[in-house]
């Protein structure tokens, strides 16, 4: 009993740090970096992606004995696409402003390699509950990197967090200025590079 418990925990927790999908597996950096200019959009994106990965893992895992092997990619793609459409419509219905800001990037979750990657490498070979947890773990691991990047970019770039001013006025009065560069695309690449460096150095200790 102890053993299964620790395995469940491992499946859930490993992707958060030791086997982080962006940092270690180098999956799915595509597309989502564009939403990291603000913390708010990054958080929404992280939640949407976690939901899609978790439920697509669950669905693929439930159906894993029914899907014929040679058409499995198409079957997985259909499941993922359906979930993404649901997520997209939900965002449009309840958070219209944010869905406008996320523009095409919600749709691009479909081609995000994490979703297909986890379905292929984990859900096809494991029972539903474990797969669901794996999906949540990977989604959160991925989301935490997005949120970390967005945190740095919004703090240094606009001096705000979630839209609230956090840099004290006294700083500005004494000559501090927001770093406009952080709001541009290149900053995201460089921050990711530095985060990877940090993570690898800490892991190798």
């Amino acid at each position, binding site marked *: 009993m102890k053993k299964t418990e620790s395995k469940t925990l491992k499946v859930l927790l490993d992707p958060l740090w030791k086997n982080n999908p962006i940092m270690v597996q*180098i*999956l*799915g*950096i*595509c*597309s*989502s*970096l*564009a939403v990291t200019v603000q913390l708010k959009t990054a958080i929404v994106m992280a939640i949407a992606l976690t939901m899609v990965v978790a439920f697509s893992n669950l669905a693929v895992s439930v159906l894993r004995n029914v899907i014929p092997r040679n058409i499995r990619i198409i079957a997985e*793609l*259909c499941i993922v*696409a*359906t979930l*993404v*459409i649901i997520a*997209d*419509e939900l965002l449009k219905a309840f958070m219209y402003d944010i869905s406008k800001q996320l*523009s*095409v990037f919600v*749709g*691009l979750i*479909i*081609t*995000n*390699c994490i979703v*297909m990657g986890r379905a292929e490498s984990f859900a096809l070979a494991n029972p539903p509950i474990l797969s669901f947890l794996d999906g949540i773990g990977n989604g959160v691991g991925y989301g935490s990197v997005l949120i970390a990047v967005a945190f740095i970019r919004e703090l240094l770039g606009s001096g705000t967090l979630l839209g609230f001013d956090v840099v004290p006025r006294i700083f500005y009065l004494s000559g501090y200025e927001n770093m406009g560069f952080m709001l*541009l*695309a*290149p*900053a*995201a*690449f*460089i921050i*990711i*590079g*530095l985060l*990877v*460096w940090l993570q*690898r*150095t800490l892991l*190798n200790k």
Partner: protein
Amino acid sequence: MDNIISIFINSIFIGNILLAYFLGMCSFLSVSKNMEASVGLGLAVTFVLAVTTPVNWLVYYYLLAPGALTWAGLPGIDLSFLKLVTFIAVVAAIVQAIEMIIDRFSPFLYSSLGVFLPLIAVNCAILGVALFMVERDYNLIESIVYGTGSGVGWMLAIVSMAAIRKKLRYADVPEGLEGFGITMISTGLMAMAFMLFSGITM
């Protein structure tokens, strides 16, 4: 005409699909290790984008957009929520067809591009361009130009990255930053260089 030129330049430099919108990163990171493969994949992506973007335009505006089915006598139907699935299916089908056609008529081209074509079907750049085209309300001609320009821009980015990585092999990179980390940082520096074009207005 001005408009067309401006879309073309914009999609290659200022709004580069990879450096400004982060699309197509996965294959960019894995393939840019190798110069020849980068050129091959770049050509293949350009070709596929130039073909699929206008086809997706036709599909969207004659089948899916709100009121698009007026020609079939169904003006009240809005299928635009299906665009994600449809675009992916169209891209996959076209890539498959292109592969078969190239295989039949040009064995030389097939041997140089062939291996990359299946990879492309899942490249986010292709789907991203189709979605941007819808969002920015391009017309048919503009969508052809935009598709081609984005492909050229992507190719420019991956080929320059391959060249940089070739030189990087001789560089003394700090431990932990090797590989993925330094690649991301050099991509960032390259993106900065591309941002210099953003002052240009046509």
